[in-house]
Every structure is written in C-alpha cells, then in structure tokens.
C-alpha cells in the first residue's frame, strides 16, 4: 500500500516542479554564499597555494615549519599567505595546552564543588574534564568549508514546504473528492491506512532531506575539497571548544540524523493538523510561524549543537541537550503517531 501512497506524492506535478526548483535554488544559494572561495579557486596563482598545502598537510613537523619559513621570502610564492599558515599550525600545536588548561580548571572546580557538597556542578565539571582530557591536534589540514556546510540549513525549510505540498494528495484530496467515503468503508481504511500515509510522508521527507543534504555536501566538497574527515570535530578551528569528540564524518552523519528527526516531527505535526482541520490549508498557516521563529528547525540543527551544547541536569545525571532533544523527539513521535491515528479515524 505504501507504494501507492508514494505514487500519489511523487506523481503530483506541483511537488515535482517545487522539488526541482528547490534543488536548483539550493545549488545557486551555495554558489552565491561561497563566491569568495570559488574566486580563490579560479585565481591563476592558486596552484602555488595548492603546492604549498600539499607539502605541509598531515602530521606537523619541524621540517614543514622550516619549509614554510623558507618560501616566505620566495617571490614565486608571494601570493601564499605563509604567516597565516604558520599561525594555524602554531594554534593547532597550542591546542593541547589549552585543552589541558580546561581539564585543570574543571578538576579544580570538581574539588571545590565537592567540598561544598554541590554534586550537580561537580558532575558537570567531571563531564567537561572527560571531554577535553587527552585532546590534541598534531596534524594540519585545511578544514575550510566544514563550518559553512554545517551552517547551511535551507534544506530543512525546503523539505518542509515540499511536505506541506505532499499532504494535499494524501489527506485533503480524499476528503474533497469523496474517496474518503470509499476508504473508510474498507477493511484497512482505519488505522492501517493512516499509518501507511504517515509512513509514506516520512519516507518521502527523509529521502528528500538526505537528497538535498548529499547535493549540498557534494557542492561544498567541489568548492572546498573536504579531507581528513575521520579526524575529530575539534580539529576544525571553528569547533575547538565543542564538547563532541566524534570525527567530522560522524558529526556530518549526526547532523543529518538530527535534521531527519526534525523533519519527522514536522511531518507528524503536519499530519496531525491535517486530521484536525479537515478542509483548509491550515497546516501552511500553522507551520509558517515555526519557520519564522526558527523553532523546530533550530532545535534540530547540528551546527547549533556543536557550537552551543548545553549540559542539562536530570535526576542525578547530566545529559547533553542533543541527547535530551533526541529523547524528547522520540517520545513526541510515538505520541504523535498515536494521535494522528485517532484523529484521522474521528
């Protein structure tokens, strides 16, 4: 049955037109927002930068530092910003010390809070110390573009609009056309069909978000040339202070999963709205404020979580806000699916 519901969505001309339009807009937006890098890539002397980078990337060594210092006086390499590169390498090497300072600070706090009986803060600082303990950056790679990729988040809004378009053939058209009278008088016309419709929306939404995110990844990779993705996220300069110790690749996947979860919540809310408000375009009106306020989209933004992770004390344990968001999302999904089932039958 799912294949037929999917056909209703994907055979909708308006849906297909919007899909292709959004893919086009997505590509153009990335292009426009990263023109600086694109112009750098086109610059005729960029090949010197590439040559220098190829010679210094990887494990940091004294020879590489000396190499950078030697070419800084070479007129052929005057377009290469060797000072910037040396600063980057130095900062990478300094990271271990900074991380150790964070650990020491946290350990001091642990002692203090334990002495005054503040278990909550003691546990919180233990968590921070554990995150930063043993961190170091011994390699140099160009991580440009990773922050831009994680920040780029138009795809969630586009997929939400596509889901609003999808809801018409699945939920509203049956009522307007009288097909709902036939469907409600068949064996699987109760909870089964509503779950099938919901599953179709979810499959479509997840496929769309993955598709757009993959297109975005490919375009960013073409512009910036991602590498060393198996290195920890904190190696990326913009994410030095993150509490996440996963690799960049793992974080990309986590970011995609968070977006999928956000889309899942939006789909369930849309379906619930379509079941409650039977004959209008109310879902559009309901969802728009969510866009304007950022709302659900911001909540499930991996970029925000990497930069602004909060630790929240629940019971006797600390959890990251990402963990709690996922847990809450799962509960909302389960309750939402049950609610949609009941509302549709009514």
């Amino acid at each position, binding site marked *: *049955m799912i294949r*037929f519901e999917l*056909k*209703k969505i994907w*055979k*909708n001309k308006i849906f297909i037109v919007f899909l292709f339009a959004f893919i086009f807009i997505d590509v153009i937006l990335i292009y426009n927002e990263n023109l600086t890098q694109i112009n750098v890539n086109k610059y005729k002397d960029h090949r010197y930068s590439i040559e220098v980078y190829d010679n210094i990337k990887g494990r940091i060594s004294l020879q590489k530092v000396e190499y950078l210092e030697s070419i800084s006086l070479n007129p052929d390499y005057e377009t290469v910003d060797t000072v910037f590169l040396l600063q980057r390498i130095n900062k990478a090497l300094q990271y271990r010390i900074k991380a150790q300072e964070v650990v020491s600070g946290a350990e001091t706090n642990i002692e203090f809070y334990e002495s005054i009986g503040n278990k909550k803060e003691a546990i919180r600082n233990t968590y921070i110390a554990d995150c930063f303990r043993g961190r170091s950056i011994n390699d140099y790679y160009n991580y440009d573009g990773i922050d831009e990729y994680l920040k780029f988040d138009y795809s969630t809004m586009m997929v939400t609009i596509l889901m609003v378009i999808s809801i018409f053939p699945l939920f509203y*058209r049956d009522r*307007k*056309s*009288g*097909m709902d*009278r*036939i*469907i*409600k*008088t*068949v*064996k*699987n*016309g*109760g909870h089964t*069909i509503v779950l099938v419709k919901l599953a179709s929306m979810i499959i479509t939404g997840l496929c769309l978000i993955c598709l757009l995110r993959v297109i975005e990844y490919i375009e960013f990779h073409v512009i910036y040339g991602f590498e060393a993705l198996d290195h920890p996220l904190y190696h990326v300069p913009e994410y030095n202070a993150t509490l996440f110790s996963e690799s960049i690749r793992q974080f990309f996947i986590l970011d995609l999963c968070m977006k999928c979860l956000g889309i899942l919540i939006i789909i369930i809310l849309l379906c619930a709205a379509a079941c409650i408000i039977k004959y209008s375009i109310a879902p559009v009106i309901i969802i728009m404020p969510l866009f304007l306020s950022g709302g659900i989209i911001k909540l499930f933004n991996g970029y925000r979580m990497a930069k602004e992770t909060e630790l929240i004390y629940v019971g006797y344990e600390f959890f990251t806000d990402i963990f709690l968001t996922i847990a809450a999302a799962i509960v909302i999904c389960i309750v939402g699916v049950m609610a949609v089932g009941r509302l549709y039958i009514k």
Partner: protein
Amino acid sequence: MLKVECSDVFYGKNHVLYNVDLQLDYGIYGLIGENGAGKTTFIGLITGLLKPKKGRVLWNDVEIGKLGRKYYDNVGYLPQFPALYGEFYPIEFLYYMAELKGMKKKEYKDRADKLLDFVGLGHERKKRICQFSGGMRQRLGIAQALLNNPKLLILDEPTAGLDPRERIRFKNIITELSKDKIVILATHIISDIENIANEIIFLSQGRIISKLTADEMLAELEGKVYTAKIDEYTYETIDRSLISRVINCNDSYMVRGFIKGIQGAVETKPTLEDVFLYKMLEINEGCHDKI
C-alpha cells in the same frame, strides 16, 4: 442479512433519519427519494460511517459495531461522484483498492483483471484515470466495489453521468451480480431500478414511507393514473403538481398524471415515476383529496 432496528441519526442537533426499521435479504433494493430525503445518510448508517443515536444495525444478527473492520469484508460501496485518482492506471487503482480491502496479491491480481473486462474497461488499461470519461470512471468505481466479492453492495447514484447505453449496460451488470448479494441502489432516477429491483424503499424527509415490490407499488395506483389531451387554457389552469409527464403537441398538450377529473382523460397503466409523484403528493399535506 442486513437489519436496521429503530435507528435515528442526527447531524449535530439535526434529526435526519427517523426510526428506520427494515430487514434486507439477497436481492436488489431500489432506494428512492427526492434530493435531501436521506438516502446518503441511510447509506452512511448501514456502512458504519454514521452511528445511530438510537437503534442499531446488524449484519447476520451481529451488530456492525462489534464486527469492527471485519464487517467491511462483506461490503462493497460506490459513493456518489467518486473522483478516484487521476494519476493511476485503472489496474493500479484496483490493486490499491484490493490492498485496502485486505486482499492478498495472488487473490486480487487475477480478480482485478477479470473485473476490468467485466465492466468493459479491458481495452482502456493504458489510459490513466484522468483520461476517462464520467461513465468509464463510474464503471471503474463499480469494479472496485466488487473486488472483495461483497455480500452487501451499495451503489449511490451509480448511473449519474452515464449515457443511455451505459445505463443499460450497468443494469445488466447489476442483475447478473444480484443472485447472492444484497444490492442497494440509491437513486432518484426511477428508470434505473425499473424492472430490476426486487423491492423499492421509498425515503422522504428522513423517513421510510414504504418498502414494497414494484408490482405492489404499482397495484396501489391502479385506476388513479390517466392521460389526456388538453388545450393551452386547461393546461394553464390545471394543478401542475398532479402531472407526471407533459408532451407539447403544437397547440395542445398530452398530459399524464392524477387527472381523473379532466374531460377526455383515459385510464392508463401506472409506472414507477407515477408512484414517486404519488408518494410525494401524499407526504405534502392536504393533497389526498386532489388525487
């Protein structure tokens, strides 16, 4: 067997069906009534779409509420003007409906093919439903209603939009199917049920006025229906509500109806259209003495 016991249906505070009480066995039942009589509401009641505030509906002596969705294994329903799904091919649509009806693939594949041929759409497989005429959609709608070989087949205004040839074809299909089914044809087109309905249920203003065979209904009107040729003056002055048919013949009119008192009126055999008019006149107060 389908039984409706003393059922009343409300839309909010509006009482729309009053004390509906009847029993239906195998055969064709015509459900006739004027627009707004409650035909679709009655269908909603027996399909479980509407719950009665009072009374109950039983299938083989079990309340349909207690049967739950299993009741629909026995039901085939075609509502009024179903739009169907334009982007589907007819066979795809039947497969979809078959899966909705809980049929297994090996069960429905063959049946859907045969039904498509049965309703005369076998050679239209390569067209999408959006390319179908109204009559073709109606026939496809009948095919979907028959997929699960239902014991209770409900067709609401099934011939609306069909041309005369398709109407005849439809009547033949229904007659063929009715041997081991309860077929309920809701219509206000009398000719749809003429000669095929075993019994006719007359519904008006939410009430069942009568449930009789066509012959019994026609027997009630023996000696009451007349035809006459009248001039224009008489036509202008006659009570038009008593006329079931008028034909303009140059400077005179050939009328038919409950016009016994008109000079030159000749008694004629009543038809179901006359029955329909008679029942409507009966319902309107003070009209008995006119007839």
